């Protein structure tokens, strides 16, 4: 079947073996944090889970081009692969999952997956789909006005292109050649709605209508994504303007822990995509390249397991914010 490794060679895209192992570890960490989250959900400890599973390559491949705390990032709710790579921690993810006071994103105010970090320039995300795109263009414009080389990454699912905000942002980015990269993680569904009921024509082709490049990439091939994103970020840093990347991938879980996807998709389809699991594919590539063997694989897995164990236990023990905290920090002072 489709269980092939990455097609792009890492040498050709300028990545060292250290880079590859960092990427691999981050993808696996994101996956394992997510798997544990579902367990906590089934145990009745986590009210709500929304997953990155299947999209780790698209996320890590892209984010590996970012300079944390320098570039601006507007992630969407599945992008834990991105935020972990930038510097958020497994502990932070579980604190957020459980809505604890130390949740780095919102101190328990927002649902899990609504990332935020002032230090990492991860701009506070919300639930309304698509709102991040105009905001991202504004941040990009600020960089451009100040003559800085910062770039902005804005991410969303394929359905986030259906709303007006996405279009308004792409048009504006095109007019001013703004340093922004739009990453569309096309995972074939918006909750139950399949792509063909969501997207007329093709997402990446729309970029041409705005006068900038749009590229389609195998979103399960982390090196292919890395390469496409690298070109896009370089272009942006050179002042040449935006790029739209459509990473074709698949949502391997239900939409969220509130969803039952048996209502609207076949098990076979999911099985088919399991064969293309981006983590397995990358493992295969690394093995073939002689960068990973059974031993090192197990070592990484074990260290991740420890990290996940420690993190989820910490989060379970951590306290909630006081109820009265609900009325604090409505307005900024000063």
């Amino acid at each position, binding site marked *: 079947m489709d269980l092939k490794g990455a097609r792009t060679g890492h040498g050709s895209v300028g990545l060292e073996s250290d880079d590859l192992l960092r990427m691999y570890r981050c993808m696996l960490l994101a996956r394992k944090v997510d798997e544990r989250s579902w367990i906590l959900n089934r145990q009745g400890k986590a009210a709500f889970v929304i997953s990155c599973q299947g999209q780790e390559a698209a996320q890590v491949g892209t984010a590996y081009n970012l300079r944390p705390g320098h570039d601006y990032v507007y992630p969407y709710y599945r992008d834990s692969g991105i935020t972990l790579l930038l510097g958020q921690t497994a502990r932070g993810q579980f604190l957020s999952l459980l809505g604890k006071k130390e949740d780095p994103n919102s101190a328990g105010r927002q649902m*899990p997956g609504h990332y935020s970090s002032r230090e990492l320039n991860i701009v506070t995300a919300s639930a309304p789909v698509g709102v991040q795109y105009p905001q991202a263009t504004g941040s990009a414009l600020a960089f451009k006005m100040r003559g800085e080389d910062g770039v902005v990454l804005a991410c969303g699912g394929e359905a986030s292109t259906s*709303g007006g905000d996405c279009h308004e942002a792409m048009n504006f980015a095109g007019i001013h050649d703004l340093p922004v990269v739009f990453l569309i993680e096309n995972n074939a569904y918006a*909750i*139950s709605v399949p792509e063909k009921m969501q997207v007329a024509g093709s997402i990446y082709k729309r970029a041409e209508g705005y006068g900038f490049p749009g590229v389609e990439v195998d979103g399960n091939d982390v090196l292919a994504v890395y390469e496409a994103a690298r070109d896009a970020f370089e272009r942006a840093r050179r002042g040449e303007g935006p790029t739209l990347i459509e990473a074709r991938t698949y949502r391997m879980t239900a939409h969220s822990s509130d969803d039952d996807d048996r209502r609207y998709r076949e098990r076979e389809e999911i099985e088919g995509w399991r064969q293309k699991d981006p983590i397995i594919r990358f493992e295969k590539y690394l093995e073939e390249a002689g960068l990973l063997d059974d031993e090192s694989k197990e070592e990484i897995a074990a260290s991740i397991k420890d990290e996940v164990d420690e993190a989820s236990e910490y989060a379970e023990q951590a306290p909630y*914010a006081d109820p009265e905290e*609900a*009325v604090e920090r409505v307005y900024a002072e000063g």
Partner: protein
Amino acid sequence: MTTKNLLQAIGEGLAEEMRSDETVMVLGEDVGRAGGVFRVTQGLMDEFGPFRVMDTPLAESLIAGAAIGLSVNGMRPVAEIQFADFIPPAFDQIVNEAARFHYRSNGAWSCPMTIRVPYGAVPGGALYHSQSVEAWFCNTPGLKVVAPTFPADAKGMIKSAIRDPNPVLFLEHKRTYRLIKEDVPEEDYSVPLGKARVHRGGTDLTVVSYGLMLHTALEVARKISNEYDIEVEVVEPRTLYPLDKETILDSVKKTGKLLVISEANLTGSFSGEIAAIVAREAFEWLDGPVMRLGAPDVPAAAFAKPMLDFFVPSAEKIEAAMLELARY
């Protein structure tokens, strides 16, 4: 006659209208194959097919705008906005467009359309799956805003909404979807828009409420009747806009006191309008200040349970307010 919860009653009302009028249709995100994220439209696509039960792209302005275009070309669309929190992109199409077709064309055009809007705080819903949005829409002449709370009312009112020649916003409190069951008639019937309902007679004070808060208020009213012999008259507007002020005023003129309870953050909520009407038109009958109870002025309910519980007015707070006013 079988007992049904709110969710089932609305679904049944929809299905019946679709059976009796082939111009009635449903559109929204996930309303088709999945039957809606709350399962209100479950089974409809199987019965009526993928056009009359249409999964739309994730685009709320399109949903409302297309509903307008359908409504002026012979259809009676029922659009679903998946969560009230996501209605803002449709705001323009609703308040500037649908609500004004009739007026601006001097009566030539009108938009017979319904927009279903699940609202209200639920555990785990957090800032963007919790809001009470009624204040955004209750300053819009040409629009009707209804918010039934009980299953039988809701079934009768969804029918009235669909048959109404005007755009109707149909608010459904998510936390009441499965909260209670009651007898819901099988035969065709409708409950008129624009008429409030008095749930419980009383002489000591009038409470106006809707949604989850109405259920809590009714509970507390029973409790303080038992415990303190204080009799609260509970009025449910059912339609918020245009408001049936007569029923409210009649009640306040009898009890001399008004407490309005809603789940919206208080300042600028629709409770202010109800209070203002009473302070003006029943002033001479008032024996105490016009009181309101609502959520604190923060963006919305938080994710963490303790903060959520702090946000939503509790039975304790409601009881305290009722007692304070009754004893005033």
